[in-house]
């Protein structure tokens, strides 16, 4: 009954809205649209409710049989939200053994993946017409790459799921072949798996290569697969970065709105445009930006944008004070974006990023403070 409360409320709201709109209840006509919108929003929230997953959650593990799995329409908006939310743990899947197609076949190839919604979604989307089994392991809702780096995608999690199922469900032969994502190998000890009569196969790096790989058994290790940080992959990281940094920008504007309301200072909304240019330009131009280190590439981008800002100031399109504020803010943001992009890429090494952080994080913060000071001085003088 409790589960039906909110859907019932939303349906009543939508019904009342429709009644007001079509003239059945004329007294409600003015409120018809807000009623329908509110009802629709409640329904959307029920359907797409994030899990707000926390580490250490215990799954009920109700079944020791493989479960069917197929993409539903609701998985598409969920995948979109996962992506826009910066690959955060918005939606997770219960760990276990799943199969695609109509029936469970123990001889179907078995792929291992994380219980992060977007990981499972991408695998299924590329294997629509293929009968496979998915061993979804408990990585606390984190994607394969990040979970492997922290040890959550690894032998322990694989064994924990395999132990739930009778051997005859897992395989009809002595050995169980598991196709592992190459991105997850930082957490998987393949020799230890062999000791448990598991034949680990290092599969493709990217989900889009899975269909071709599975089409030609026997399955061999994809030794030749290497990370390609090309335009497509960088574009994939572009929108989440933009959303993340525009979020920071909107927070800043909200804080300044308070100051604006108290003291009447102007609102620097143009900073949002600068953030958007940096967050879009950096990933797209990444390979051609001068510099090897991420922060240096940020400096290069900031220099190019600052030249344009200086030209705008010289042509009197932009007041000098605003131009100085914008240049300082551009350098601060571009360096910080470069540093933060280390986490979005699969080409950053720990010791190098650590060194970069030590060298560039404090200057970035100081540049933010300088831009704030320049903004305050400009406001006082004008």
């Amino acid at each position, binding site marked *: 009954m409790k589960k039906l409360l909110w859907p019932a409320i939303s349906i009543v709201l939508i019904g009342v809205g429709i009644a007001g709109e079509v003239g059945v209840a004329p007294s409600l006509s003015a409120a018809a649209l807000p009623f329908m919108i509110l009802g629709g929003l409640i329904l959307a929230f029920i359907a797409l409710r994030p899990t707000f997953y926390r580490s250490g959650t215990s799954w009920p593990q109700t079944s020791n049989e493989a479960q069917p799995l197929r993409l539903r329409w609701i998985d598409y908006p969920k995948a979109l939200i996962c992506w826009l939310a910066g690959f955060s743990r918005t939606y997770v899947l219960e760990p276990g053994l799943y199969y695609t197609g109509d029936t469970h076949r123990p001889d179907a190839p078995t792929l291992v993946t994380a219980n992060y919604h977007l990981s499972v979604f991408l695998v299924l989307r590329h294997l629509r017409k293929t009968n496979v089994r998915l061993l979804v392991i408990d990585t606390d809702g984190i994607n394969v790459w990040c979970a492997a780096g922290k040890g959550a995608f690894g032998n322990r999690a694989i064994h924990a799921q395999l132990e739930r199922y009778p051997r005859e469900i897992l395989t009809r032969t002595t050995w169980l072949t598991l196709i592992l994502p*190459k991105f997850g190998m*930082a957490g998987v000890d393949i020799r230890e798996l062999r000791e448990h009569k598991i034949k680990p196969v290092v599969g493709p790096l990217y989900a889009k290569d899975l269909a071709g790989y599975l089409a030609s058994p026997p399955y061999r290790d994809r030794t030749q*697969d290497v990370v390609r940080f090309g335009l497509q992959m960088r574009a994939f990281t572009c929108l989440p970065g933009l959303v993340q940094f525009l979020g920071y920008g909107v927070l800043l504007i909200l804080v300044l709105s308070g100051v604006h309301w108290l003291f009447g200072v102007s609102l620097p909304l143009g900073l949002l445009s600068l953030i958007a240019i940096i967050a879009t330009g950096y990933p797209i131009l990444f390979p051609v930006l001068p510099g090897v280190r991420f922060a240096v590439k940020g400096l290069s981008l900031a220099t190019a944008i600052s030249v344009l800002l200086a030209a705008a100031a010289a042509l009197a399109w932009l007041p000098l004070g605003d131009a100085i504020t914008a240049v300082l803010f551009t350098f601060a943001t571009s360096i910080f974006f470069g540093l*933060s992009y280390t*986490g979005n890429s699969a*080409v950053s090494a720990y010791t190098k990023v650590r060194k970069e*952080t030590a060298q560039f994080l404090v200057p970035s913060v100081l540049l933010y403070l300088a831009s704030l000071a320049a903004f305050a001085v400009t406001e006082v003088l004008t």
Partner: protein
Amino acid sequence: MIALAPTACTGCTDCVKVCPHGVLAMRDKKAVLVAEDRCIECGACQLNCHDGAIEVTKGTGCLFIIIKEDILGRKPAEATCGCG
């Protein structure tokens, strides 16, 4: 940083199979470093080298993890790295 001790290598090829950046290759039945600059220190090769021939300064090359763990000294739960 990655370091390889060729004398300890028994030529099992596991390190070459698991490296996502093609840092290692087999030469004369021994693993060798062929693209050290491409190493991202994920530690896959070290984990899968049971001969102790590979040593890696393993870590996560991500600003937010470095701020959380190295600067603020927080030790997050094993799996929690702050992202999805």
